[in-house]
């Protein structure tokens, strides 16, 4: 279970203050697949970062009672100057996993071949996404935080993700930020719309998507 209690997040740039999230309350039960909807800059990524513990809320509290992945997105989690293999080794070390197992899975899942020996900063965003997904799947989290990334891959990658994440691991919890009504309708059982820093919850995903498209 993940509980967000009265979360506020304000960013300060010099004398500018911008309140991104205002008093968000959200409970995610085990097995829930929550869609985060919102326009660009609404605070979806911020909320995912707060749930993932990457950034700290200005006030309020996040309680995590299960193993939550790091936010899988375009940025973060990797050191650009290191190779794909080195990053895998680093992650195996800090999550205390067997490197050879992780390496095998990453090689198989990403199909990046020799590219794994080049620095991650030379990767395209699709390639980064493959690596991020491969590593987080190899570590096996109870809850996956996915930030828009699901749509960047090609057909083959989407199919693989779909199989690994939504079929093989269908019992897992998931929090997914996406703009795609199709993906959300297909995968999620709940939705949260973030608008003007406030969150409104919907148990009917179709209704949420409809509301969102009319924003």
């Amino acid at each position: 279970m993940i509980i967000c209690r009265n979360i506020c997040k304000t960013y300060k740039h010099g004398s500018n203050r911008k309140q991104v999230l205002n008093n968000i309350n959200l409970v995610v039960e085990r097995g829930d697949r929550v869609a985060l909807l919102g326009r660009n800059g609404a605070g979806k990524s911020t909320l995912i970062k707060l749930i993932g513990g990457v950034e700290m809320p200005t006030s309020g509290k996040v309680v995590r009672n299960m193993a939550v992945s790091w936010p899988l997105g375009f940025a973060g989690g990797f050191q650009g100057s290191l190779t794909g293999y080195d990053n895998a080794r680093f992650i195996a070390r800090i999550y205390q996993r067997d490197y050879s197992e992780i390496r095998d899975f990453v090689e198989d899942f990403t199909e990046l071949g020799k590219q794994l020996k080049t620095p991650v900063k030379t990767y395209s965003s699709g390639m980064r996404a493959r690596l991020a997904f491969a590593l987080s799947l190899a570590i096996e989290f109870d809850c996956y935080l996915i930030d828009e990334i699901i749509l960047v891959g090609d057909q083959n990658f989407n199919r693989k993700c779909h199989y690994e994440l939504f079929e093989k691991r269908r019992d897992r919890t998931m929090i997914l930020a996406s703009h795609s009504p199709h993906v959300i309708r297909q995968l999620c059982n709940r939705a949260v719309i973030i608008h003007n820093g406030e969150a409104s919850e919907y148990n009917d995903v179709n209704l949420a998507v409809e509301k969102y498209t009319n924003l």
Partner: protein
Amino acid sequence: MASTGLSRLRKGWAIQIRVIHALMIRELTTRFGRENIGFLWIMAEPLLFAGLVAIVWRLMKGTSEHGIGMAAFAVSGYIPITLFRHGVSRSVAAFTANGSLLYHRQIKILDFIIARFIIEVLGGMMAYIFIASILIFFKEFPIPDDIGLFIAGWSIYCLFTFSLCLIIAPLSEMSEAMEKFVPVTTYIMLPFSGLFLMASWLTPKVREYMLLSPFVNAMEMMRKGIWGDQITAYYDPWNPIVCSIVAAAIGLVLCRRVRRTLSIQ
């Protein structure tokens, strides 16, 4: 309840050790690569710096001053000061430079400072041992008289430098001006680092002020450990220890505050 607290502490401790270990390896590979001598480069810089200064001093100022070897004196001053300057400059913007790693919750910002600092300490120690061995071979460096006192001095010096890093790292995230001031400040404090002289060479009045500096106290300990009865040293180990505790307490509070507002790409 107490036992669960203790076991949680032990578990957290084990995780942090693992993280620091992984960060150190990562740091070494990004900074030095795997080619040629690889991680041995960590001692290259202090070695070159202390070595060249020792040669210059030896040529300019002669073989000895106040009865101690010039080359050895230069080395005993420059290795610690390199540790300090590198430690401090590596702490500047350490959090943003490693920001993307904060995606992994088990990595704490303190781990960045600790990992970088341990690398600098290891580099300094390796360089020290290397250069001292060579100089001892050429009879330019004495066999340390009291190695325990020397190690105590070195440890205290490291402790104080580390506690300063704990302050500088968060401050450099809070204001950009800080970044510009660090090189100047480290340069200006050189005379107060005990690098160029022993306290016993000074008049009692000046000595009193010099001994307020934690660096001077630690430096005197190290030099007393090396030369023993050949020199007179003035030091109070409690000065650097107390200063370290105060600085570390301030630093930890600052780190905690900065972590709350750190925004990560």
